[in-house]
């Protein structure tokens, strides 16, 4: 079948060329029609020339060339705009966040915001010390990473080095399914399953909201990310390296752990950093499961509020546009943006700088 489909395509291409070229009728080609409507003057200027040629076949008819050039340029410009729009998004994000945050910092000094230890933005007497939110975010992130890094890395090693094809065909899609589940569903899962059915028997003192339940759910959510990126990195390690290990008498474990993992380390580290950035920005899980009490504590069984959690809480109630609590959202958003962007840039740098290049 592929052969005949290919021939059909070629044949139709040839037909198209045949109908277009000899007579040079403007408009056989849709592109020319568009160009023709856009630049009628060129078309009118050239049309008599083709008429002069009559029905005599002309091998290279350039009548459409000018208009085609023009339409090329227009299409090119449109496509360029599409690409530039993505840059505009970044500019927009930075502009909005900085502009609103600057208004906020006119009310609250930057130092008070960054180093204050009380966050009561939605209270009658608001205090804007962001550290409790940051520590809540870090607590959830650390718990999430201590779930996602071992689970993700071990899954990646198994899928890349060990799994027989049939097992892989079952395990890989289930990891992908986990990756496709909306975060709000994980939040619900944390509240209705992880806390009462998993954590409560182990820690009887755990309250309805805790950083631990939220962190575990975030960890489960980011595990597929770590697994798939690390697996990609390990699969890119050339076979010859493994064979060298086996030739020296190493077991499969030794080859996996002492040859493949070090060789793929840049990609693996990058996957950890990306997962961390994802965990910091995760919103709906912490909004449902971590609670809404910003506090500086090292006890993961306590309720905490993350930066994203605060933004959700503020919008779930009524914040009046332009008031300091409203503006503080953008300051928190800016901090969140800077943290995740830094991590993303570091992960790109890690891949670019420490990648082992083979062959």
């Amino acid at each position, binding site marked *: 079948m592929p052969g005949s*489909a290919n021939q059909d395509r070629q044949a139709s*291409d040839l037909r198209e*060329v045949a109908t277009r070229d000899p007579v040079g009728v403007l408009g056989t*080609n849709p*592109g020319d029609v568009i160009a023709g409507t856009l630049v009628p003057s060129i078309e009118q200027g050239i049309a008599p020339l083709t008429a002069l040629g009559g029905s005599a076949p002309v091998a290279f008819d350039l009548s459409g060339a000018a208009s085609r*050039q023009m339409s*090329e340029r227009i299409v090119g410009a449109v*496509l*360029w*705009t*599409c*690409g530039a*729009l*993505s*840059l505009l998004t*970044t500019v927009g*994000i930075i502009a*909005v*966040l900085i502009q609103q945050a600057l208004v906020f910092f006119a009310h609250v000094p930057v130092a008070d915001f960054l180093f204050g230890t009380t966050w009561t933005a939605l209270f009658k007497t608001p205090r804007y010390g962001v550290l409790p939110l940051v520590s809540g975010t870090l607590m959830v992130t650390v718990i999430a990473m201590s779930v996602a890094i071992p*689970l993700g890395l071990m899954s990646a*090693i*198994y899928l890349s080095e060990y799994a027989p094809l049939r097992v892989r065909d079952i*395990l890989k899609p*289930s990891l992908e399914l*986990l990756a496709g589940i*909306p*975060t*709000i*569903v994980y*939040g*619900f*899962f944390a*509240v*209705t*399953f992880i806390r009462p059915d998993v954590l409560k028997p182990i820690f009887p003192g755990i309250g309805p909201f805790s950083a631990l339940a939220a962190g575990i759910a975030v960890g*489960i959510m980011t595990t597929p990310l770590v697994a798939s990126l690390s697996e990609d990195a390990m699969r890119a390690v050339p076979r010859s390296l493994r064979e060298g*290990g086996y030739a*020296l*008498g190493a*077991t*499969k*474990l*030794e080859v996996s752990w*002492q040859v493949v993992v*070090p*060789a793929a380390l840049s990609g693996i580290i990058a996957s950890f950093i990306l997962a961390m950035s*994802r965990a910091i920005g995760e*919103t*709906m899980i912490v909004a*449902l499961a971590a609670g809404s009490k910003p506090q500086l504590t090292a006890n993961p069984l306590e309720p905490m509020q993350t930066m994203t959690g605060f*933004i*959700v809480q503020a*919008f*779930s109630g009524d914040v009046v546009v332009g008031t300091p609590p409203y503006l503080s959202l*953008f300051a928190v958003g800016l901090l*969140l*943006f800077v943290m*995740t*962007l830094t991590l*993303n840039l570091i992960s790109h740098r890690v891949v670019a700088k420490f990648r082992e290049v083979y062959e």
Partner: protein
Amino acid sequence: MSSQTTFRSRAMATSPIEQPSNLTRRKARASLVQWLLFVVTALAIVILAALLWDISASGARWLSLDLLTNTSSRKPENAGLRPALLGTLWVIGLTALFAFPVGVGAAVYLEEYAPNNRWTRLLKTNISNLAGIPSIVYGLLGLGVFVSLFALGRTVISGALTMALLILPVIIIASQEAIRAVPPSLRQAAFALGATRWQVARDHVIPAAMPGILTGIILSISRAMGETAPLLVVGAAAYVTFNPTGLTSKYTVLPMQIYEWARRPQQDFQDLAAAAIIVLLLLLLMLNATAIYLRQRFARNVKW
């Protein structure tokens, strides 16, 4: 590479000739770890099963036609998802409408047009960074630009525009990969016949890359369908008892409704949230099945 040197020295120290007993221990450890790795990886299935069991255990009871046709209500037995379903349809439909042409256009530009210069590298770095920005930050962008600056208010259109920006980088990256997979010979043949760059892209590259592009788009749409945070920020309303009527209508979406129900203390609303999650997951399943179907269908038509 340092890892290789450590490996070599260990391999020499544990040479089977000097210490024959070592090998059995190493082999035992290797097979033990193999089992451990398998168990950990299979945990994904266990978690998936626990999640589905948890949700269906509390939600199945509330699944009914009334759930799909009723509007939101203070009483759990009357509560339904109709405004949320229609809101999701409106917002996601418009999101796709905005994001599809721009995303594919940007991908075609980057792969077929862009010269390899500093500007192009900037665009590419920028797109991969955009993909890593938390979704709630896009919400703040939408709030600042669409809701306030363009004065679109808390409406369907500002929600859809925000979501379009959110999924744009994902669509661009997926489309770029699909376009890159089109063999260069196809382009060269078309160029040789005198086709212009746009003719090559429109008539050959894009059709050939279509299955990959469509898959990427549907996957990003399904991501958008499960997103709550940005829409919460740009003002999907919490309590909506009417259908969205147009671009400037107030609205809610499915995940927003789930969030609303899940955070109420009453058990009945918790269970309703589980039922709504089942509806959401079924919708996502349908979308993904469509993606697979389209990919296979298109893949049959385009061969080289």
